[in-house]
């Protein structure tokens, strides 16, 4: 080996090699490196002895503590269920008419219902349940499918136009696309529909259309929407006389509804939410509406 070369700055010897000008010092590995290697290894050793760790062919070392994540999670779930059972059994057993009067149960409904709604329903109905284009407002307006707790619970259970065998079926025909009505009739009846919630239209420049539309409505629409346009919960046909709209109440939106028809899709929750969760949601929605300004 060549004469030992020392780095003037650190005083350490180099290894004697050089690559393209790079040299290496032969500095010993600092003590802390060994110390921490030993510490982390000892910790690991300790942990391996206590916990499930090394495979042994068909099985594995179970660890002295006997901890197993499957039993741990099962135990945690059992305990959580037990804590919740205090109110869960009460809600399950009580009738829809008595729960709203029970303040402690209603606190559960408001707390738990809010997260259940946020995680399952808000994507369509909005975080505040006020709906959005294509999705009904659950806090105001008349109900499409009825507002009794049983009716609401049933809507949640089976859904609308969903894959459930008992699904509610809503079908607003495509009067334009399927050529059931000429364009002029559609324009007229659209004006008439608008006048139901906004009477000023009947006396404005569109008065003629509204009058003609009334006739079209009587022949084509009353079967579902009712004589007065107040809707029909048997068909899920919305009330057209209020100012709460699913698809929009401006002339263009109504024209689009009439031209292409509408089939809102509300999923079935029977397979995804427990009866208790659905009951809480029903109570939650009704409570929201009761408290809505």
């Amino acid at each position, binding site marked *: 080996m060549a004469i030992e070369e020392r780095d003037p700055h650190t005083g350490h010897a180099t290894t004697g090699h*050089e*690559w393209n000008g790079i040299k*290496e010092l032969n500095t010993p590995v600092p003590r802390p490196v060994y110390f*921490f290697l030993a510490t982390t290894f000892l910790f690991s050793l300790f942990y391996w002895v206590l916990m499930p760790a090394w495979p042994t062919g068909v099985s*594995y070392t179970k660890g002295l503590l006997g901890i197993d994540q499957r039993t741990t999670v099962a135990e945690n779930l059992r305990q959580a269920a037990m804590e919740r059972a205090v109110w869960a059994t009460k809600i399950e057993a009580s009738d829809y008419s008595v729960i709203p009067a029970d303040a402690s149960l209603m606190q559960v409904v408001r707390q738990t219902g809010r997260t259940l709604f946020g995680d399952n329903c808000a994507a369509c109905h909005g975080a505040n349940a006020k709906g959005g284009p294509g999705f009904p407002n659950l806090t105001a307006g008349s109900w499409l499918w009825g507002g009794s707790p049983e009716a609401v619970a049933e809507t949640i259970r089976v859904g609308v136009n969903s894959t459930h065998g008992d699904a509610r079926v809503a079908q607003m025909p495509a009067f334009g696309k399927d050529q059931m009505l000429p364009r002029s009739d559609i324009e007229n009846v659209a004006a008439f529909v608008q006048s139901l919630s906004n009477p000023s239209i009947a006396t404005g420049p569109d008065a003629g259309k509204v009058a003609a539309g009334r006739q079209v409505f009587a022949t084509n629409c009353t079967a579902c929407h009712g004589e007065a346009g107040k809707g029909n919960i048997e068909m899920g046909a919305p009330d057209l006389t209020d100012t709460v709209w699913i698809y929009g109440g401006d002339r263009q939106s109504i024209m689009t509804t009439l031209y292409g028809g509408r089939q809102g899709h509300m999923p079935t929750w029977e397979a995804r939410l427990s009866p208790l969760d659905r009951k809480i949601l029903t109570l939650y929605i009704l409570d929201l509406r009761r408290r809505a300004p």
Partner: protein
Amino acid sequence: MISTLTKGERELAIVILGILACVGLAMAAAGRADPLGAHGWLIIALCVPMIFFVIAGYYTPQPAEERLSQYYDDPSKAGIIAAMVWVVFGLFVGDWVAWQLVYPDLTFDAAWSSFGRIRPVHTTSVIFGFGGNALIATSLHVLQRTSRARLPDQLSPWFVLVGYNLFCLIAVTGYLMGVTQSKEYAEPEWYADIWLVIVWVVYFLIYLRTLARRKEPHIYVANWYYMAFILVVAVLHIVNNIAVPVSFGHAKSYSLFSGVQDAMTQWWYGHNAVAFFLTSGFLGMMYYYLPMRAGRPIFSYRMSIISFWGITFMYMWVGSHHLHYTALPQWVQTLGMTFSLMLLVPSWASAGNALLTLNGAWHKVRDDATLRFMMVAAVFYGLTTFEGSFMAIRPVNALSHYTDWTIGHVHAGALGWVALITFGSIYAVVPWLWKREAMYSGRLVELHFWLALSGTIIYVFAMWNSGIIQGLMWRTYNESGTLAYSFLDSLVAMHPYYIARATGGLLFFLGAVVGFYNIWMTIRTAPAAQVSDVRTDIPVPASAGTPALQPGE
């Protein structure tokens, strides 16, 4: 470019491109009704012009014999430029994805621009496009100089570089068409995977052939790391991508593994991609450019050895820390966690070795932004590995997993370590490769440094906050014993941090644009009349031994 190839190599290039074009044609025919067909056309559209390009240069004079006494750097130059193009593109897409999380409407209602498609476009462009090209370019540069041997031939490095970029292009365009294996960082489908294997084997062979002919008695540390990177990535890539295509006319394939075995294979791959692609390769870069730029010897050869074997051995075990509290048997999780903890020691030894190498050169760190890039990178490397080992502890992971904390951790590594060490190395190597006295503008390097550093810090802090808040919200119960917050509530809480993150990303992106401009202008300025020392492509006389270079084969 063609003028540096021998006649035989030119002919071989035409043959290879011809075969590739035929494969493209076969894919286009077999996959008429499938994205596979579109990729066939893409291959044809790239190969045919390249064939003409080679033919156009076919009759240029052959390279002179003198070339053999010089290093062959053209592929490295092209690789650096490719890396810079990919990084500007990849960071742009990355920031776009970040803003999509703030304003979901930024998909503009198109399928190709949806979050699920452009997120992998971002990750692939920055990791494989930017990182991979930078690794190939610098590894060839370092390999020749530390072995004092010219690359074995002129064609194979071009094959690797062009082939690798073809792989990246197929990957990225595939995602936009909805082609994906749905394995994170291994999204490309079977045909792209097979192609990458071919390219990678040639890459490894270049390494072996050059090292076998080296004039230095020992193999330098940087080359250990580069070799580990190439070898292990090949193993990981092949195992994780074993799949059966639906047919030769379809892009879709099904993995050989399923269920928890699939998850374990994927994260064994995933974490070792972090280890051997994003760590080992870039440590190779650091071990050459940092001491070169600092003008200091490596602090400790012995520490290099401990770190190298520690890192290569222990990383192999830790993938299961991505699957804590899942269907994965607990004993596998235990091993992942404990090896992650032990891994911290060699990781810190590496970072320490780099920082201690700077002893005696700290005044340079202060004045030279290029060296500062590398110094800060080593610091981030240390921080990120600490954080990683910490997050691998099961109870910590119970909080951090599935949250933005993970994203923050990844970016501390990807921006702070990988990108900074790469930019530092690129700023060091560009004047050497193009034989310029220095970069076009030192002040722009300085500007890039501060943009990159502030962008990284904003990003990482935003995601730490966001991730921890998110994790806590997901596990908070109300008095009724049910979850206090819906997922939506946590999203609302994330919103301000998403804005901060996207802003940090924007700064980082702007830095890369500045860097791109600076490099471009450096290339365009006239070469310096006389470049000294390491900048030449002729070997520096070693203190011991002959100065001569081992010529190509």
